[in-house]
């Protein structure tokens, strides 16, 4: 695998560099607007990025296998809509059940995408683009084009995202739990390492007997489950489920993940990296309005950030490879 000793130092250097960049950026924002580094703003920032964080773990696993999933924005909307409709029909339903319901909806979508990619050998971008439309269309169909608004939701449901446990907001808590689980899963379990292997070299993975198709199915299903979960969190947080909920949100997730140093060609990336990437991305979203940049600039800035991140990943890797070659020559 590519995380061998020779590149370990520079891999860590990347995360340290990202951390340094975050600190410098935070100081700059602070200079422009002293509101930035206040407790309440930082709490808002983390709350707003928690959902992004949940999703970025799943997207990282997909990018690790060399794939991509564009359907998650639609999955968020669909799972959120189905859950919200259920809650408005049966207000007494327990929040835990709602979470389970949304996750299950996401799993179904994820299994379909995974099956198409792994067993029907459809390119991930085409399979997920197709599913994106299907699921988005279904969202409009089940809601008949209407919204589910705050008054139709029970207080217990809205408390999923707005409430707090042990003084920490539920959203942040959920994100931390997911990060911990997946950090362990990806670095210390056999299946987790298989994911890296599949992305590093699919052919080798086949030859050494890694069940590549099952790994792909697993990865897309996990992404679906996380997107389903995020759908419930989203609807509960904004107290509104709409047909166009989270439209284009997949792009934000991809941006955060590539910012965190995950290679889009597969096999490279760490959970600590995407945590930093997610925070950096959340910071940009949070701070741009604070320093009076028009919201219409955000999309373009997001795109430039993704492009610069992937290009710098490539340049760093080229540099690494050159260093390795030079070391070998001596």
């Amino acid at each position, binding site marked *: 695998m590519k995380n061998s000793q020779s590149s370990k130092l520079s891999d860590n250097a990347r995360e340290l560099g990202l951390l340094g960049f975050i600190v410098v950026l935070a100081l700059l924002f602070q200079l422009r607007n002293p509101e930035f580094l206040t407790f309440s703003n930082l709490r808002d920032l983390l709350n707003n990025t928690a959902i992004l964080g949940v999703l970025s773990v799943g997207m990282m696993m997909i990018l690790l296998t060399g794939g*991509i999933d564009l359907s998650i924005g639609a999955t968020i909307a669909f799972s959120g809509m189905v859950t919200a409709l259920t809650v408005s029909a049966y207000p007494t339903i327990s929040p835990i059940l709602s979470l389970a319901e949304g996750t299950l909806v996401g799993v179904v979508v994820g299994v379909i995408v995974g099956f198409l990619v792994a067993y029907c050998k459809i390119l991930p971008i*085409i399979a997920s*683009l197709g599913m*994106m439309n*299907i699921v988005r*269309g279904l969202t409009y*169909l089940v809601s008949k084009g209407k919204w589910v608004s705050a008054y139709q939701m029970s207080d217990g449901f809205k408390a999923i995202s707005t409430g707090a446990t042990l003084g920490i907001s539920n959203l942040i808590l959920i994100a931390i739990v997911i990060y911990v689980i997946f950090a362990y899963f990806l670095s210390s379990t056999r299946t987790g390492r298989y994911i890296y292997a599949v992305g590093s070299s699919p052919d080798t993975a086949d030859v050494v007997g890694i069940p590549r198709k099952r790994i792909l199915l697993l990865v897309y299903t996990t992404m679906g489950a996380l997107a389903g979960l995020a759908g419930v969190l989203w609807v509960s947080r904004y107290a509104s489920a709409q047909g166009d909920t989270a439209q284009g949100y997949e792009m934000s997730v991809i941006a955060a993940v590539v910012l965190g140093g995950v290679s889009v060609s597969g096999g490279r990336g760490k959970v600590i990296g995407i945590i930093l990437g997610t925070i950096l991305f959340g910071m940009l979203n949070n701070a741009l309005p604070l320093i009076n940049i028009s919201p219409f600039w955000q999309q373009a800035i997001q795109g430039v950030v*993704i*492009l610069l991140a992937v290009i710098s990943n490539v340049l760093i890797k080229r540099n690494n490879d050159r260093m390795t070659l030079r070391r070998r020559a001596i």
Partner: protein
Amino acid sequence: MSERTLEIEKPRSLKNFFFQWEWFLIALFVIINIVNSLLSPYYFTADTFLSTPMNFLDKAFLVYPMMMIIVLGNIDVSVGSIIALSSVIMAVSYNAGLSMPLAMVLCLAVSTFCGFINGFLQAKFRELSSTIITISTQIIYRGIAYIILEDKAAGKFPTWFSFLGWGYIGKVPFIMIVFIVFTILFAILIHKTRFGRQLFAMGNNSTACRYSGIKTENMLISVSTIMGFMAGITALFLTSRMGSTRPNVATGYELDVIAMVVLGGVSTSGGKGRITGPLLSIFIIGFLNYGLGLFNISAQVLLIIIGALLIVAVMLQNLRFDKSGQKSGAKHVQLKR
């Protein structure tokens, strides 16, 4: 890999002639038209067949360059955004006092430049997939359109400009004539020139092409630039039809166009395809939309149908191409033993 042959080099025989994807498409087209004519008694008139395509031909300009990109084994999801950006820039520069013909030239220049950027990035950073590059430029281009026009609409074009989208020459819509011209040009470019041959060769094995002296980087750049130019043409016709433009125009066009190309029998793994397939599928999807409109089916269901069509088309393609691929794979393993 050695077993792979170019689609265009298959031996001509009666069997091969009848087992062509195009026959399936023609059958599909006929079925859709029969269903449509059952739904509406006024369907089978020359007028229907001349005027209905006006509704979908703007998208059709994108199909051939997208086919070239997919033949290379790449993909471009930024076309919708290129259309939006060039259309917005045209409208804003016209409203700022530029004369309309110059604004139209500017529109084409912007879109061509956007396409060039896509190709340039792909050529310079070969490690990156075209997916991630066009995803980021997709966001950037539309983002710039939003920066320029925010959430407003721009228009008030001169009246003659609407001729592009709505005008007729004799009984034939102007857009149809332009489409036919471009179809002929692209058919020649893809199937009768050296450029076209190199395109298919690169789709089959890009590395081998580089070593045999094909300037692969230039190929990537020129194909993307052509895509950009055609996106500009689409922007002209689309803006003319709508009469005004917004930063969110042409959202999701890339999906429709990719669906048309793939349904037309172009393999997403590159190197295979023929221009007649996408040509047929333009009309299949176009008339399907029209028929669903007769049925009074909502746009949301249309989303589902196009999405499903895309997936099913690729699945069928994979089944079709899988046979030869597996055979050569098996032989490969045997050789090793």
